[in-house]
C-alpha cells in the first residue's frame, strides 16, 4: 500500500507537471505533441549534469543545478516547435512528431558519444547513464518523498494564479481562443504563443527529469521516457485544459501507472493482471472520456491553427 502511494505520488507529479506544460502551450494556441521529446531532452540534460558534476558539487547545489538544466534544456528544445509552428506556420502535429523522433535519437547519440568519450573511445555503445539520486529524496513518516513533489505543488498553484489572476494569463488565453481579437487590442500573438510554448518546454523538461531521477539510478535513453509524454497529453485532455482538473487527472492516471509497476510484486499479482493491462488502462480511460466529452470540449478554440496576421 505504501508502495502504491509512493509510486502514485511520484508519477502524479510528473504527469501533472508535463500536462500543465501542455496546457500552457495549447492555451496559447499551439498543439504540443512534442511533450514526449521535450521530456527526454530535459531528462537527459539533468542527468548529464548529475553525471558530470556528481563528485564535485555539494548535493544541494547539484540538485538546483540539475533541475535548472533540465528545465532550460526543455525550454530551448521547445523553441524548435515554436519556430516551426509559430514563425513558419507549419503543421503543428508534424513538427511535434519530428521533435519526438529527434529527441530520442539525439539523446541516444549524445549518451553513447558521452559514454564512449568517458571510456576513452573504447567503442562503448551503451545508451545508459547511471547517477545518484539520494539528494532528491527525503523521508517523512513511513514514506519517502522526492523534491519534485514540493516543486510540483508550488508550480501548480503558480500556474493557476498565472493563468487566471494575472494579465499575462488573460492575454495568453486570449491568443489560444481568438488570436484576431487579441491582435486587435494590441497583443502580440506570436510573442504570447512563444511564451506558451516555452513555458511548456520548461515544465516538460522538468517533468522529464522528475520522471527519471527519483525512481531509478540508471536510465536507458533508448526508450525515451516510455510514452509518458503522450500520457501527459491524455492527462491534459482529461483535465480539460484546467490546472486543478489536470492535477486530479494526473493522480487518477498515476494510480494505474503505479499498479502496473507493482502488479507483479504484490498481492495484486493474484488478480493475474499483468503490468501491460494496467499500462493500457489510463489510455483506454482517456479515450472513453474523450468520446463522452467531445460534444462540449473545453479545448482552446484556436489551437492548432497557425496565426497569420495578414489573413483575416
Amino acid at each position, binding site marked *: 500500500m505504501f508502495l502504491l502511494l509512493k509510486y502514485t505520488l511520484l508519477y502524479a507529479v510528473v504527469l501533472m507537471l508535463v500536462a500543465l506544460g501542455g496546457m500552457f502551450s495549447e492555451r496559447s494556441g499551439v498543439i504540443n505533441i512534442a511533450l514526449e521529446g521535450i521530456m527526454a531532452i530535459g531528462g537527459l540534460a539533468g542527468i548529464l549534469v548529475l553525471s558530470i558534476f556528481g563528485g564535485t558539487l555539494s548535493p544541494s547545489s547539484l540538485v538546483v543545478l540539475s533541475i535548472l538544466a533540465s528545465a532550460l534544456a526543455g525550454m530551448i528544445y521547445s523553441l524548435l516547435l515554436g519556430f516551426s509552428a509559430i514563425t513558419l506556420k507549419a503543421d503543428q502535429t508534424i513538427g511535434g512528431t519530428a521533435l519526438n523522433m529527434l529527441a530520442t535519437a539525439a539523446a541516444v547519440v549524445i549518451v553513447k558519444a558521452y559514454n564512449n568519450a568517458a571510456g576513452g573511445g573504447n567503442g562503448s555503445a551503451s545508451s545508459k547513464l547511471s547517477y545518484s539520486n539520494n539528494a532528491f529524496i527525503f523521508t517523512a513518516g513511513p514514506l519517502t518523498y522526492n523534491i519534485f513533489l514540493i516543486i510540483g505543488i508550488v508550480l501548480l498553484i503558480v500556474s493557476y*494564479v498565472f493563468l487566471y*489572476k*494575472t*494579465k499575462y494569463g*488573460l*492575454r495568453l*488565453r*486570449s491568443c489560444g*481562443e*481568438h488570436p*484576431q*481579437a*487579441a*491582435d*486587435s*487590442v*494590441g*497583443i502580440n500573438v506570436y510573442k504570447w504563443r512563444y511564451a506558451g510554448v516555452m513555458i511548456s518546454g520548461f515544465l516538460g523538461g522538468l517533468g522529464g527529469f522528475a520522471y527519471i531521477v527519483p525512481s531509478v539510478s540508471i536510465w536507458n535513453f533508448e526508450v525515451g521516457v516510455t510514452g509518458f509524454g503522450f500520457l501527459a497529453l491524455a492527462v491534459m485532455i482529461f483535465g480539460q485544459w484546467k490546472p486543478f482538473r489536470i492535477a486530479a487527472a494526473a493522480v487518477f492516471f498515476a494510480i494505474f501507472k503505479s499498479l502496473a509497476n507493482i502488479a507483479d510484486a504484490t498481492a495484486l499479482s493474484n488478480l493475474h493482471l499483468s503490468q501491460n493491462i494496467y499500462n493500457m488502462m489510463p489510455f483506454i480511460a482517456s479515450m472513453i472520456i474523450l468520446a463522452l466529452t467531445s460534444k462540449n470540449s473545453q479545448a482552446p*478554440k484556436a489551437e492548432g491553427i497557425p496565426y497569420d496576421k495578414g489573413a*483575416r
Partner: protein
Amino acid sequence: MGNNDYIIEMLNITKEFPGIKANDNVTLQLKKGEIHALLGENGAGKSTLMSILFGLYQPTSGMIKKNGKEVKINNPNDANALNIGMVHQHFKLVECFSVLDNIILGIEPTKGLFLSKKGARDKVVALSDKYGLKVDPDAIISDITVGMQQRTEILKMLYRDNEILIFDEPTAVLTPQEIEELMKIMKNLAKEGKSILFITHKLNEIMETADRCTILRKGKYIGTVDIKDTTKEELSKMMVGRNVNFKVDKQPAKPTETVLKIENMTVPSKMHKNNAVKNVSFNVRRGEIVCIAGIDGNGQTEFVHALTGLEKMTEGKIFFDGADITNASIRERSKSGISHIPEDRHKHGLVLDYTLEQNMVLQRYWDTEFQKGGFIKQGAVRAFAERLIDQYDVRSGQGPITIARSMSGGNQQKAIIAREIDKNPDLLVAVQPTRGLDVGAIEYIHSQLVAQRDKGKAVLLVSLELDEVMNVSDRILVMYEGEIVGQLYPDKTTVEELGLYMAGAKKDVVPAEMNS
C-alpha cells in the same frame, strides 16, 4: 473652414494588393462630433480604407492627419494611442471570457502582479449607464445576444477613451429593434463629442443618422455630400454609378403544376437556442421564379440547407414532384431533380484544389456517363467539361485542368451555375447567386435563371439584394426571423413596402397554401 475642424483626415490614400488597387487616391475627412457615413457597394474598398485607419494595413501612398498633424499608424496599438477605436464586422471578442475581461483585454488594470478588476468594473458600469449600453459585465460572451456583444465592442472603445469610433457594417447582424437602438446610441455618442465613421451600404440608415457621407466606387473616391442636401436617389446613383435599373428582360410567368411543396418546416439554429426556421409552408410551381427575400440571418441559410438535405429539420415535410423527400439524403434529392447553387461558393460550391473539370462533375461523378466499375472515365469528364466551359463561357487560365482556386470569382460562379443548370433540374435553388460579382456577370446569371423558368422549370431564388428581388422574381416571399411574413408580387408592390416587410414592420397572416 480651417484644417483644424477635422479630427481625422485621410488624404490621397492608395492601397495596392497584388493585382488590385483596393483604394485609389481616396480622401476622407472626419469632423469632430459628426457621424460620417462611408458608402459603397461590396468590394468598393470601404473596409480596406478603415483597416488602414485602424493600422491593420499600411497604405501604398497617401497621408493620414490627426488634428492637422501627420501621423503614422503601423498597428492597432498606434491607432489606439491616437484614440481611434473600431467595431469590426466580425466581432473581436473571446467567446469564453466575460464581457469585462474582453473590455480590459490588452490594457488590464493590475495591482502588483495581479489583475485588479474592481475599478475597471465600476468604469464599465458608469459608461454603460451614461450611453445606455445595457450589458451585464460578468456575463460570458457566448451566452449573450449579438446586440449585447456589439455593445461590448462599443464599451471596449469607450473604456479606452477613444474619440474616433469606426463602425464596420454594424447593422448587418442586428434585429430591427437592435438597429434602432444602435442608431440612438450612435447619435448619443456624437452628441457627447465622439466622432463616428459608419461603414454601410444601407441608404436608410445613412439618411437617418449621418451628418455627411463619403462615397467610394470600385476603390475610387466619388465624393462627399451633406446628408441634409441630398436624397437617397442621389446617394444611390453615386454608389452604383448609374441609375439602379437592371430591368431583367422577361415575359410574365406562366406557372403550371406544383413541383415543390413545403409543409410546416422547422429547423433549429446552430447559433442560438431558438429555431432558425419556424413552421414555414409554401409551394413552388413550374415556370415561376419564387424569391425568398429578407435581411441576412433571418433563417434563409438554414431553410435552404434543410431543403437540400445539408441540415436536418425537426418538424414538417417536403414533397418534391409529389414524392415525400423529407428524409431523403443529399444525393437522393440531387438525383430526383433539385439543383443547388450554394450561398458560399468557396465553402460548398467548389473543391478549390480540384481542377475545373473535376469540379464540373462534382454532382455527377458517380453517373455511368462518367464512371465505369468505379473507374472515372477521364475522356468523358474532359469532353463534358469542355462543352460546359464553351456553352457557359467559363474563362480560366488553362481550361479544364485549371485549378479552381486560381479562377476569378465570377468564373467560379459561372462554373457552378453551368454544372447545376446542365443537370436539367426540375427545381433550381439559387442562393445569392450574384454575390460579389460584377455587373456583366450579374446580368448573365439573371438571364440564365429566367431561361430556366421559361423552359418550364421552377426556380427558388434566395436573395438579399432588393433590386434582384424586384427584378428577377415572379413572386416574393419575405422571410423574417424564420417565418414567412408576407407574399408579394413585384409588379404590385414597391421597394418601400418590401423593405417594411423585411424589417419586420409589416406582417401578413400568410395562408398555408400559397399557390397564387
